[in-house]
């Protein structure tokens, strides 16, 4: 009976869709201890009614890891992960259309002497392309059960559950393990001998020691010499084996891979029949446009422009509905409760603060919907390819684009997505600049400033000025991220030219279920944050903005006298050169935790300030726009709004990002460097924008 199942496979094989089909909503997302690799664990109900934990491992091409997430998958499968017990059954998900390459990983996992069940996924696509697979023959050749599935349609899931249940039971009846493929005889001899030494020295099982021996024999001699975890005797033996095999004329770097593929090729020759359709596939036809050196770039820019325009305009109605609902709730509470501190706390500290942020949930969900569609259709990999040339100009490669694109939703998964980048300096550079990409937390700030200060006029009859302004902020972040990456790669993080290799999955109809599940997970995470951190911050802020109380005077006088007012006045001299006053200063300080707290802070401040005027349903944007100085001039202008947005584009205002940077870089050096350079950048650029705006007569 399996007690822990791991789901492994190449990227883009449908592994996560299959995992979602097996677990339904009975899954949770967290982190592996000590690393920021996302841990996706679910519960699988077996036929006997028992529940077994099932882990969705990061996609990997081989157990010879080239990046941190591949290292984690390898460690878990081989039982080298201290934080996770070794699974006693691995579900290998294989893309049927790319059988040979997918079987490379499967053969390595079988070699690790761990029970395996193969899910031959996307068989419908394989058949449509002219492939005919003799599944019983394939199963006999591999020595493991092979179950055809179409995860996106739920086909084969019940048979797969049965095989997983039976796979665990059959473990006890398996024959003694033996490797199914062969190496040239001298190579076989050296491998077996090194494996015996490793088994006695370090204690891994014989199959795991064989895998380790192969990796050591294939590695560069110079690289092996630097491996501190091996005792000198083992390293000396490895060097000797290198010399012997080199002398005999074997290409150590290729013989293991080629021998394994030769075996895989022979299996496929016996199990797969090809009847090619002759016509170019749909993926061919689409790629001829999408990856065209000219039209591909145009299409990409148009797609990104459409994404932002849609995100802004489609979300307007649901946002208005949510805002009105919260306003109604505030009024209902106001009528139901007697006047007093508690009512004030609930309406202004609680409802007011949270409402200001939750209103932007529709925009955030649209963003995740679009990113999910780009990923699931297969376009994301093409986008990385198109962006590779641009990325290479700043010293990175196309794979760095995907974490940056993810950062449009949130920098935390964006930073985690850098685990696919092999070069550590490229990875660090990408992590350091990812927070410059405008994330969903900045959306409420941008939306508030745009609503308050940017007139809703159409430009050229096609795009609205608010949408153009929003897009400009996103572009500013992207340009600054690329510029900073260029500077880092020229100075602190120099390295050789990156090698860009990326698999392009075939285009497919996206799985709506998977995308909706992703949207739900992210929306829930956002709402949880709103209900905890933001609610807490709003209540604390209400308290600091209400006390100490003073008798008489206007609401503005009472606010000035409060703790918040005093703190804001202390900060004001520092931020006055940016065109900010003490109230904005309070917002900046409060939103150090999370950017969207700026909006709830303003909501609380103006909710409190406006109590003498009855508050009512006047939006926060209108209140900001209507704020007047003592001599009747607008306190805040369009220039103020633009400067606030520019500051938020560039400043580090997110504890979660700092925390994930600390974990990912194993220390405080790089997170502190990141906070420092982003603060300096935000202050300098905002100052320049403010001064330029004043010179142009835009505000002041």
């Amino acid at each position, binding site marked *: 009976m399996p007690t822990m199942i791991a789901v492994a496979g190449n990227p883009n094989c449908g592994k996560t869709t299959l995992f979602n089909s097996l677990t339904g909503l009975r899954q949770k997302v967290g982190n592996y201890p000590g690393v920021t690799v996302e841990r996706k664990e679910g519960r699988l109900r077996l036929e006997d009614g028992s529940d077994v934990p099932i882990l969705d491992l990061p996609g990997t*091409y*081989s157990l*010879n890891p*080239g990046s941190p997430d591949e290292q984690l998958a390898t460690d878990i499968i081989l039982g080298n992960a201290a934080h996770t017990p070794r699974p006693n059954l691995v579900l290998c998900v294989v893309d049927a*259309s*790319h*059988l*040979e*390459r997918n079987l*490379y990983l499967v053969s390595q996992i079988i070699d690790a002497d761990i029970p395996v069940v193969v899910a031959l996924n996307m068989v419908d696509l394989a058949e449509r392309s002219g492939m005919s697979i003799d599944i019983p023959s394939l199963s006999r050749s591999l020595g493991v059960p092979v179950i055809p599935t179409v995860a996106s349609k739920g086909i084969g899931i019940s048979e797969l559950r049965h095989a997983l249940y039976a796979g665990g039971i059959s473990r006890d009846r398996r024959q003694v393990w033996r490797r199914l493929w062969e190496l040239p005889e001298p190579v076989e001899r050296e491998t077996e001998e090194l494996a015996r030494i490793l088994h006695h020295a370090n204690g891994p099982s014989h199959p795991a020691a064989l895998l380790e021996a192969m990796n050591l024999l*294939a*590695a*560069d001699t110079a*690289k092996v010499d630097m491996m501190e975890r091996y005792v000198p005797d083992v390293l000396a033996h490895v060097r000797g084996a290198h010399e012997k095999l080199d002398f005999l004329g074997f290409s150590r*770097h*290729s013989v293991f*891979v*080629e021998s394994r*593929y030769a075996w895989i090729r022979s299996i496929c020759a016996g199990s797969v029949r090809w009847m090619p359709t002759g016509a170019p596939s749909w*993926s*061919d036809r689409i*790629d*001829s446009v999408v*990856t*065209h*050196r*000219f039209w*591909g*770039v145009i299409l990409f820019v148009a797609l990104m422009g459409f994404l932002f325009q849609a995100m802004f305009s489609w979300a307007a109605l649901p946002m208005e509905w949510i805002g009105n609902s919260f306003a109604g709730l505030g009024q209902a509470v106001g009528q139901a409760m007697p006047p007093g501190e508690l009512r004030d706390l609930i309406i202004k500290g609680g409802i007011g603060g949270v409402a200001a942020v939750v209103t932007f949930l529709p925009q955030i969900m649209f963003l995740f919907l679009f990113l999910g569609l780009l990923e699931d259709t297969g376009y994301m*990999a093409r986008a*990385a*390819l*198109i962006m*590779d*040339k641009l990325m*290479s100009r700043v010293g990175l*490669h*196309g794979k760095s684009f995907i974490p940056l694109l993810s950062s449009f939703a949130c920098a935390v998964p964006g930073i985690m997505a850098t685990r696919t980048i*092999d070069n550590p300096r490229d990875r660090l550079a990408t992590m350091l600049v990812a927070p410059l990409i405008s994330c969903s937390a900045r959306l409420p700030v941008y939306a508030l400033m745009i609503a308050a200060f940017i007139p809703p006029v159409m430009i050229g009859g096609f795009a609205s000025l608010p949408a153009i302004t929003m897009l400009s902020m996103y572009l500013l972040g992207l340009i600054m991220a690329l510029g900073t990456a260029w500077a880092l790669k020229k100075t602190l993080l120099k390295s050789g*030219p990156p*090698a*860009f*290799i*990326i*698999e*392009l*999955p*075939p285009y497919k109809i996206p799985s709506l279920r998977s995308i909706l599940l992703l949207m739900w997970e992210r929306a829930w995470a956002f709402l949880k944050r709103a209900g905890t951190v933001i609610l807490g911050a709003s209540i604390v802020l209400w308290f600091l903005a209400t006390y100490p109380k003073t008798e008489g005077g206007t609401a503005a006088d009472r606010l000035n006298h409060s703790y918040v007012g005093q703190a804001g006045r202390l900060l004001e001299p520092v931020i006055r050169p940016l065109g900010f006053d003490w109230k904005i200063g309070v917002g900046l300080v409060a939103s150090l935790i999370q950017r969207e707290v700026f909006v709830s802070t303003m909501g609380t401040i103006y909710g409190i300030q406006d109590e003498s005027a009855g508050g009512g349903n006047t939006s926060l944007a209108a209140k900001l726009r209507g704020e007047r100085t003592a001599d009747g001039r607008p306190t805040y202008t369009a220039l103020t709004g633009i400067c606030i947005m520019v500051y938020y584009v560039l400043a580090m205002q997110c504890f979660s990002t700092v925390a994930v940077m600390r974990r990912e870089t194993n220390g405080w050096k790089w997170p502190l460097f990141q906070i420092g350079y982003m603060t300096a950048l935000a202050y300098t650029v905002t100052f320049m924008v403010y001064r330029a705006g004043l010179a142009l007569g835009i505000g002041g």
Partner: protein
Amino acid sequence: MSARSTLTLGDIPIGASVRIRRLNSRPDVSTRLRELGFCENEVVRCVTHGYGNIICEIRNSRVGLDTGLARGIVVSYLE
């Protein structure tokens, strides 16, 4: 050195199929290429040229490579 021995994957026209002779990249990059199927004697087809990269088809999989990497893969036309 003959023209045939210096022909690389970055040089071949769209639609052409060639056989891989040698990988001249860094050892770690070559290992990764082999694991993705770019082994010596394997047949690869050029699908399209992008801006600074190429898309090729190998073992029925589509892979994008930057042009620099493609120029490190020595190939010959099929006999």
